[in-house]
Structure formats: C-alpha cells, structure tokens
C-alpha cells in the first residue's frame, strides 16, 4: 500500500481543515492577545494581534473581584455532578428509546421531544423550584432543571442504534438481562458518544448562568458564568441608568478577558473527552 502517497481528497481536506483552523484560531488569538492589551489601545484599533501595550487590568478586575474562587468551586461542582447525573439519566432513557420496544419507545420519543418545543415559561419553573422544591441557593437548583437535554437524548439514541444488533441477540441467548446488556455491553461500546454527550453537557453546565440567576441569590454561591455575566451586563444597559462615579472599567478588554477565563478550563478538559472519539477515527485513516 502506498501509505505515503497523498490522494487529492486528502490534500483538499488538509487545506479545508487548515482554513477552518485559521478562521477559528485568528479570532481566538485576537481575543487572548486583546485581553492583555490596554483599553486605550483597544478602543483605538478595536483589536490587537500582539499586545503592544501590555496590560493586566481586566484580569486583575476579574480575579480580585468578590468570590471568584467560590465561583470556580461552584462551577466545577455544578459541571462535574451535573454532567455525571445527566449522562446517567440520558443514557438510560436513550437506550430504552433506541431499543425500539413496542409500545414504549415511540411514546417515550414523543414524551422526550415535546419539551424541546413546549415550555411553560419562566414563572411556573420559578414557582416550582423556589416554592415547591425549595431549592434556592442549592447548586441542584442549577443542575436539576438542566438535567436532560432532549437534543442530546436523540443524538445518543441515533448512536445507540448504530451498534450492531447481533451482539445483543447473542448476549440474550446467553441469558443476559436487559440491564446487564446495557451496563456490560452497550455502555462500553458507546464510549465515543458518551464522551461527546458528556462533553456537551459539561459545556452546557459550565456556560449556564441563567438558572443560577433565577435561583441563587447568595453571592458566594454564584457560579463563574453568572459572575462574568454580571460584569458583562453591567457595561451596557440604558441611558436612563444614572452613571455612577465608578472606577475606569476596561470595557473591551474586560469582555475579551472574560471570554478567555471561561474558555480556559474547557480547553483543558477537552483533550480528555477527545481521546475517546479520536481513537476510533484514526484507524480508518492510518491504514490508507
């Protein structure tokens, strides 16, 4: 096999991917570089490809702000516990739907899909969580309302359905029950999709500030995105709002720095998830 020879399609792919990488990496670099550039410079040029006037004001503002460490802890807790719970609950449901059980799978599909379309709105959810479940100021008030995303259920269902049926048949002939098939066969075979769904849940929890805004009023329990959201939203509201004699806030720089602070941990965590869905793929390519 001429393993070294590059086929035209591979060349096109390399060029295509390189282009995509540049389209994402340049703004990424502009954000990182901008977050270290002084506000004056940014207000003049709008961006900087290299921090000509190096400046840490925004980062100082973020990290000396009240309760940033608490916020990191809250976010990590919500993300880790939330992702684990979500993954477990979603996998269970997805599996039952994927099995195409007569009289069960199809109603469940509709049942899980409708919430994607219909929502009771803010007020009932608020009443439910604060007055009936009494979850205010608990991290679970952020986790539970976001526990299952129908979208990811269906992503997982379609992945489960691609598993070869024959394995389950033979397992059944060997006398394995449904639960055992699920835990010992389906789950281990589905690591790539579990990694993807887990990653998406993690991202979802990590980015959420709205549930926290609704249900958490103890500032020491604010997750990171809510703290950041506060900083961002304070810098633009309405003309009716009286100005305050506030210290100079680096608006442009702060927004860029906040982006960097949010993305950082996810970029660190990404390779761990990536392991699972890269491994399989390389096979198809390296043998070519």
């Amino acid at each position, binding site marked *: 096999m001429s393993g070294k020879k590059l086929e035209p399609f591979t060349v096109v792919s390399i060029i*295509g*991917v390189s282009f995509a990488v540049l389209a994402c990496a340049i703004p990424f670099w502009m954000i990182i570089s901008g977050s270290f550039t002084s506000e004056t410079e*940014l207000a003049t040029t709008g*961006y900087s490809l290299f921090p000509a006037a190096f400046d840490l004001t925004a980062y100082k503002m973020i990290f000396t702000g009240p309760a940033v460490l608490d916020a990191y802890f809250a976010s990590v807790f919500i993300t880790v516990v939330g992702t684990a719970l979500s993954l477990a609950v979603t996998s269970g449901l997805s599996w039952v739907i994927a099995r195409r059980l007569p009289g069960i799978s199809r109603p469940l599909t509709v049942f899980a899909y409708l919430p994607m379309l219909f*929502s009771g709105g803010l007020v009932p*959810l608020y009443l439910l969580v604060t007055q009936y479940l009494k979850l205010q100021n608990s991290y679970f008030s952020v986790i539970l309302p976001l526990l299952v995303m129908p979208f990811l259920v269906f992503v997982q269902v379609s992945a489960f359905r691609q598993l070869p049926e024959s394995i389950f048949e033979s397992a059944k002939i060997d006398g394995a029950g449904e639960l055992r098939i699920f835990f010992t066969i389906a789950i281990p075979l589905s690591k790539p999709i579990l990694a993807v769904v887990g990653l998406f849940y993690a991202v979802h929890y990590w980015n959420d500030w709205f549930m926290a805004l609704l249900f958490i009023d103890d500032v020491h329990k604010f997750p990171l995105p809510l703290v950041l959201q506060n900083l961002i939203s304070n810098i633009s509201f309405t003309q009716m709002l009286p100005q305050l004699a506030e210290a100079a806030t680096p608006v442009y720089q702060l927004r860029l720095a906040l982006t960097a602070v949010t993305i950082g941990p996810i970029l660190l965590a990404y390779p761990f998830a990536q392991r699972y869905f890269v491994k399989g793929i*390389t096979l*198809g390519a390296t043998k070519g």
Partner: protein
Amino acid sequence: MSTLQTRQEPQTRPPSGPPGRRRARRGPVRTSWTIGLLALPAVVFFLVFNYLPMAGLVVAFKQFDVNLGIFDSPWNGLENFAYFLESGDAARILFNTLFLNILFLIATLAAGMILAIMLNEIRSTFFKRVSQSVVFFPYFVSPVVISIILQVLLAGASGGGGAVNDALGGLGFPAVDWYTEPGPWPWILTVVKVWQLGGYLSVIFLAAITGIPEEVYEAGMIDGASRAQMAWRITLPLLKPTAAVLLVLGVGRIFYGDFGTIYAIVGDNGTLFDSTDVIDTYVFRALRQLGDFGTTAAVGLFQSVVGFILVLIAVLIQRKYSKETSIL
C-alpha cells in the same frame, strides 16, 4: 390476556429494517419491566421540570396581572396572540424567521458534516487533535464578543472604515456602510452561525464516524476505491441517520430565532430589520417595556405549535422516504 394481543400488534407491520432488528422487536417483551427502570429517572425529570410547568401556558390566554399571578389573572381569550399576528410586520417577520433559520440549519449541518469528513482524512494525530480543539472553540465565544469582532471587521473600532472595507478598497471596490445596509446580513449572520456551530456539530459527526467498522473501509480499499470515493460512498451515507436526526430536531425549533446571537449583533439597529428581524427579537423589543408574561407566553405557544406542526410534517416525510433514519 387480551392486552397481550393488542400489545404485540406492532409486530405485524411490514418489517423495514434488517432481519436482526425485527427480531429485536420481539425479544425485549420478556424483560421490558427492568428496562423501564432505565428510563424512569428521565421520565420523572420530564414530568416535574417540563410537563408540570406547562400548566403555566394558561397565562397565554389571560390578561396578566402581577398581583394575581399567572393562575388567577382573568381570562382574555386570544387577545394576547392578536398583537403579534395582527401587526403589519407579521408576514415579514415570519418570513425572516423561516428563511434565516433554514439557512442556519442547512449551512451549519453541512459545515459540521464536511468538517468532520475532512478531519477524518487528516493523518497526523497531532494536527487532528489541535485542529479539532480549535474549531470547537468558537462555540464558547459569547455573542457580545462576536458582535465586537464583527464591528471591528465591518465598521472599524470607531465607526469608520473597518478591515473588510479596507480590503474592498484595496481591490478597488467602494466601501460599504455595512451597518445600514440590510441586504448582506442574512449571509453575514449565516457565516457567523457556521463559525459558531460548525466545529461543535462536527464533533457529533466525528463520533458517528468512529462507529463505522474498520472492515467497511478495508473492503472499499480492496475494491480500489479512492479516498474521495470512500468518503462519498461509505462515510457520507453512514452519517445520514445522524444528520437526519439533527435536521428533524432543528426543524422543530425553526420558529425560534437565534435570539442571543442576532440580538447581540443587530440589537436595535432598525436599518437592518428588513432582513434580520425574527419573532424573538421583535417580541423582545415590543414587550421589554411592558413586562407582560401573558403576551410573551402567547408568542411562545404560537412558535411551539407551528414548530410542532412542522416537525410532524418532517417526520412524515422522513418516514416515507427513509424509514431507517426516522427518529420515531
């Protein structure tokens, strides 16, 4: 035991899938009680956090009163729906909503799929890993920051010039006042959406590609297929089920504009509304000073019902042409 008979009825439908799947339909009956346990937590979740609060939709038919709350406010029939549907703008806004979202849906799915297939061709593990991480990153950039970057590109930091206009000038074209010119905006927003979501969606497709057994490619190679042919004949068809699911899911949400991104970028810039105003942005602007949960709920319900109808149609079409990929 008559129930047993009726329950087993579905089997009598003509089988569509491969033989293995037909057998699967019969098999689980024996053990379905335990399998129910797996779905139970999710079922409870949906009941408590989604279906119970849906009772709150009644407020769409009520004259909302803060003091009385959503359940005790007086009824007012369809009045809450009227302000939107009877507005002279409804037709244009509905068109924009559909047009933009179809554009976004198709463009992002195509971009995700193409990107995944291309990534799959990369042999250097290092390059593959790095490029995957990098293309995923835009998903995290908040719309506010996207808006800043766009302003720098299209208008310059202080409202004159901009990188794109500089480039146009270099090529001998006249500069464009992008922020007062509605024409190009559907395409600008589509580019933004593709940038935002292309990498995110490519991860889903990559995971699907991972599931493709190695032997399939080996067989293809023995037949002397080029890599392009294999991508076209093997990978792409196997990604179809995933794409179909994502498409149907997307169709249901087609009446929800992408409020966050569009509003952060267009904001209250009326000159661009002709091509960018969608239901969500219109409603937000019209109602932000009224604080009326009734009318908000009415619009939401309208979007849901229309979305529901569209999904039904999509599912029916899908079942007709490709039963295998149907989510139902």
